[in-house]
């Protein structure tokens, strides 16, 4: 049974305080970028980035460089190359991403078999270790969150128009190529930085689930982004507390809380919709106003 005493004990631990703050910031970061990624149908792209990160980490281990240092440049270069491949190829995007994703995962597993000893352990790479988040990690995630909020905020018009119709965006002066690339690079950096806390397998959940829940609940764009960030942050916080109190693995606990949040959003949005459809229709006066098409 969980009591207030155990909660106090957990909250008093410095590593748990760092984990909670790290989870809050990582969750909010995933929500902010995920809100755009989901609309632009880049959900699978973040998954492919996450899995390819394993290859980056393995390369780091093999050449004897700290994997965290090699992960960011690796993820950025990988994201740019995949973006070029998707733009230039005539094959469907999901098929291309699947090829990239499975090939990089296979290459990473093969390369890992060459590693004799790795202190971190494969389990930590796959599911993350949010309890091992350092103060430096918190600063990096905080800086990234600030950068992401500023970028998405000031370029909101460009992001929306680019998502709706690239030609329309270009016609009103949006630098479409630049914004597409900037967003993908930012997403790659965020994925690379969050891998340590969240793990290779669960990173895409941080990007996709809160944004989908926010999409179901909100009608206005700035509220949608804010709600996705708030849901991402609060689900991470709650998931970590559940994990701490029940001694369950942290990453999967957070993802399960995100999933429950999504189910609640689904139920809430369905009841909102049915409530609206039960409202009596406004009487139409013939000839008054435009015809509803």
């Amino acid at each position, binding site marked *: 049974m969980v009591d207030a005493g155990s909660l106090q004990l957990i909250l008093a631990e410095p590593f748990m305080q760092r984990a909670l703050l790290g989870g809050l910031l990582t969750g909010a970061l995933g929500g902010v970028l995920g809100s755009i990624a989901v609309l632009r149908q880049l959900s699978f792209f973040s998954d492919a980035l996450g899995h390819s990160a394993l290859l980056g980490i393995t390369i780091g281990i093999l050449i004897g460089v700290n994997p965290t240092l090699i992960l960011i440049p690796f993820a950025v270069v990988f994201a740019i190359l995949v973006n070029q491949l998707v733009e230039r190829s005539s094959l469907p995007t999901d098929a291309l991403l699947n090829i990239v994703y499975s090939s990089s995962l296979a290459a990473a597993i093969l390369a890992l078999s060459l590693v004799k000893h790795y202190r971190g352990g494969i389990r930590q790479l796959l599911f993350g270790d949010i309890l091992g988040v350092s103060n430096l990690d918190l600063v990096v995630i905080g800086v990234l969150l600030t950068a992401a909020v500023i970028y998405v905020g000031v370029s909101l018009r460009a992001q929306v128009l680019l998502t709706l*119709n690239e030609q329309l965006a270009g*016609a009103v002066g949006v630098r479409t190529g630049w914004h597409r690339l900037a967003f993908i690079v930012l997403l790659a950096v965020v994925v690379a930085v969050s891998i340590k806390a969240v793990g290779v397998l669960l990173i895409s959940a941080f990007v996709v689930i809160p944004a989908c829940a926010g999409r179901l609940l909100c009608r206005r764009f700035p509220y949608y982004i804010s709600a996705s960030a708030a849901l991402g942050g609060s689900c991470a916080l709650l998931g970590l507390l559940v994990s701490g109190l029940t001694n369950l693995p942290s990453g999967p606990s957070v993802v399960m809380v995100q999933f429950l949040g999504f189910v609640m959003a689904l139920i809430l949005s369905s009841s909102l919709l049915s409530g609206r459809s039960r409202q009596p229709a406004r009487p139409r006066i013939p000839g008054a106003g*435009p015809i509803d098409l």
Partner: protein
Amino acid sequence: MQSPVLVVSDLSVERSGRLAVEKVSFELASESETAVVGPNGAGKSTLVAALLGLLPRSAGDVEILGRSLASNGHLPGFIRSKIAYVPQSLSLQGRFPLTVAEFVGFGFDPPGPRWPWRQTMQRLEAVETALDRTGCLDLQHRLLSELSGGQLKRVMLSFCVVRPRQLLVLDEAQAGLDVPSNERFQQLLLELRREEGWTVLHVSHDLDMVRRSSDQVLCLNRRLCCSGTPDNTLTPERLTELYGSNVVPYRHQCHG
């Protein structure tokens, strides 16, 4: 005499390794309405994309409102803000959390960074006026993804009329509109031309509407097959040449 709004000289555009538009030249006079007609795959949308600077050109020159369009598609911001474009469709898969009023507000904003919560009275009024003008005021709180195809077309036109423009480019914008909506759409285009001096270039398959509303018709099938007034271009002989089969334009009796 006013200088032309758009001057196109020997424009050629490649798409997917083949020449989709070849040596096309024409001018758009101020306050005129010009229609581009032609069969599917004739290069109409490619022409529009190249004129807006969205596709690189292989050869030729484009001058918009007295400024040359750079080969990389760059136009000064103040010229760009005088051009409006209505695409064939918007990518709205699933629930898209954006209201009609928000979308139209993006049409009012100048290019460049801007905080999303900065709402000026001028912006709000402009959005309301634009929606009222296109008969979309009752849709302002609806989501874009909740609209029918015809409503979406009218909302896209609101996006254009929310600020003063000089050149309006429509890519099959009236496809999918029912008869009353089409009439209202056409009436609004006429008002914009006569009262605010807009010039309209539109791609269309509705030859009857083209005949009734356009001052100039460009018959495109990769090259410019013919151009001129509707009476001179939309003849059975010319249309058969353009479409490759017997095409006889049908005139709606109610319009004479």
